[in-house]
């Protein structure tokens, strides 16, 4: 079978179960394509030889009852993997070898999947273009010198470029959904508390969530079913009844009420995005959904709130990188000097910027004016959603205010970079699930995504809506393999 890497996860699982393909064949096919795709710079660390060994071992005694039987998979380098270097895209963790495995990745290996390697990302997941990574820019398979989005940029590039059949990312303000939208793939940010944060390098603990990134909604549902478990090791993991999302997946969404929030019609939004949204509304109607106009009045306050809450939590979380117990250490004249030089040389510019913002808003005399204020506005934003969900079952919006941009285009203007997340950030602040599905192309042929936001713990519902709309949209990603010579 020559086009193994073109198959979706569901097809590969079926073919392995039917013994039409071995894990070794599948694993080697993705390794082969990954080797030919170095120009994308999607990987930080490769683990190919060990992947082949694991695949051979699987084939000797295949357990075909598993959900991901012998499926090779690369994961974002923010997940700690036991005995395999985990960098979070940072110089400061350049040589860090975890002694433990994240719960989310452990769940994946427990279902039979095999690690291919660790994927590039923005440093500590802080970025929207993968340009803050210590390990260099990632290319978007859609076009040369185009960003894949971020922070899960390597993950998005690897799925779109078929270097891995599926992957996981993390999403603090849009880091799964925005890169999914930029690369024509599907990305789900689950409800806060759905996937364990244990073993994920922390960025902003009240917002961080892991989630699947896939070629289609069905694959996404299957991986979500695997990674979402209650975990006592994460004190904010929530013990709720999780569905077999892939088994219960249905395209019957007749009568579902889908809200269209007028505040997402932001000033200066390109007509292409407006048109895409309108098209999305028509698709939803075609699927039998009922469209309801709603209001989320505090939408425009979400980004400013996020840029207080997230840096505040980050400044606290990243205090642990001091050059003592692990990671990079710079030489210093004394202990304090060593700390200061280690952090100055070990963190990149964006991470330092956010640590400084966070330190400032938490510092004596400013806490009430910034952090407390932001927490109060966060409450208002959550209340907006609670109010809306009295009238609707889900909300439909564009995923991003534009298609992917060129590498370097927004790098020097932090605020314009932050605006990328204008439609995704409110979802994290309210702890809700959101999924981005590819829905069309702009004039340049670059993909554009639509976002479906659900009630807390209602992943099944937004997966169903995404599944039904995906069928109507019939999106085809335009990948020319330009990077393969």
């Amino acid at each position: 079978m020559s086009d193994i890497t073109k198959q979706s996860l569901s097809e590969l699982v079926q073919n392995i179960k039917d013994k039409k393909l071995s894990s070794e064949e599948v694993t080697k096919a993705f390794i082969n394509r990954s080797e030919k795709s170095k120009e994308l710079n999607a990987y930080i660390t490769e683990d190919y030889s060990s992947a082949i060994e694991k695949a051979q071992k699987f084939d000797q005694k295949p357990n075909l009852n598993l959900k991901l039987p012998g499926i090779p998979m690369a994961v974002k380098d923010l997940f700690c993997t036991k005995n395999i270097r985990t960098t979070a895209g940072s110089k400061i963790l350049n040589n860090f070898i975890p002694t433990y495995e994240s719960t989310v990745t452990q769940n994946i290996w427990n279902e039979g999947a095999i690690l291919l390697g660790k994927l590039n990302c923005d440093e500590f997941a802080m970025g929207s273009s993968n340009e803050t990574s210590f390990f260099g820019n990632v290319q978007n398979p859609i076009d040369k010198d185009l960003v894949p989005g971020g922070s899960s940029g390597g993950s998005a590039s690897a799925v779109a470029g078929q270097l891995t059949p599926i992957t996981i990312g993390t999403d603090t303000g849009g880091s799964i959904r925005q890169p999914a939208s930029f690369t024509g793939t599907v990305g789900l940010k689950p409800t806060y508390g759905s996937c364990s944060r244990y073993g994920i390098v922390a960025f902003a603990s009240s917002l961080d969530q892991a989630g699947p990134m896939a070629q289609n909604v069905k694959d996404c549902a299957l991986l979500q079913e695997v990674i979402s478990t209650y975990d006592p090791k994460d004190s904010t993991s929530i013990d709720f009844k999780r569905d077999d999302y892939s088994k219960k997946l249905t395209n019957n969404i007749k009568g579902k009420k889908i809200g269209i929030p007028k505040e997402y019609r932001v000033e200066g939004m390109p007509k292409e995005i407006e048109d895409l949204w309108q098209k999305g509304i028509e698709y939803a109607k075609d699927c039998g959904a009922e469209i309801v106009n709603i209001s989320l009045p505090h939408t425009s306050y979400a980004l400013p709130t996020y840029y207080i809450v997230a840096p505040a939590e980050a400044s606290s979380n990243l205090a642990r990188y001091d050059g003592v117990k692990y990671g990079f250490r710079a030489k210093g004249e004394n202990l304090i000097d060593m700390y200061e030089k280690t952090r100055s040389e070990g963190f990149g510019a964006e991470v330092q910027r956010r640590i400084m913002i966070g330190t400032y808003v938490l510092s004596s005399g400013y806490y009430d004016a910034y952090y407390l204020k932001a927490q109060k506005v966060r409450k208002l934003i959550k209340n907006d959603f609670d109010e809306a969900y009295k009238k609707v079952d889900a909300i439909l919006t564009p995923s991003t205010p534009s298609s992917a941009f060129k590498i370097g285009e927004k790098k020097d203007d932090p605020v314009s970079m932050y605006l990328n997340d204008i439609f995704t950030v409110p979802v994290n602040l309210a702890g809700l699930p959101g999924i981005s599905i590819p829905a069309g192309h702009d004039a340049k042929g670059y993909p554009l995504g639509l976002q479906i936001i659900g009630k807390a713990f209602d992943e099944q519902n937004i997966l169903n809506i995404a599944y039904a709309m995906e069928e109507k949209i019939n999106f085809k990603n335009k990948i020319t393999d330009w990077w393969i010579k």
Partner: protein
Amino acid sequence: MSIDLKTIKHISKLSRISVDEQKAEKLADDLNSIFKFIEKLNELKTENVEPLTSVAETTLKLRSDEVQSKDIREQIIKNSPQDNEDYFVVPKVIE
């Protein structure tokens, strides 16, 4: 309000990140443009709003404090930038 170089120096000290003059100026510019954007929150009256500290409406669960990872001392020490097999080593702190 605007963030001046003195404030940048103060935050850099609190964050334990060394900052030279050139970097301080760039940071001041960046932080000022970010804070200008953040000031938008002042449009809202929030006196009577309860702050949201967690989206999960549950109390944090307690668990017994039991050791689950065993015999990883060597691996842990191995990750430190400078070690002597038994301890984490830092620059001298006592004169």
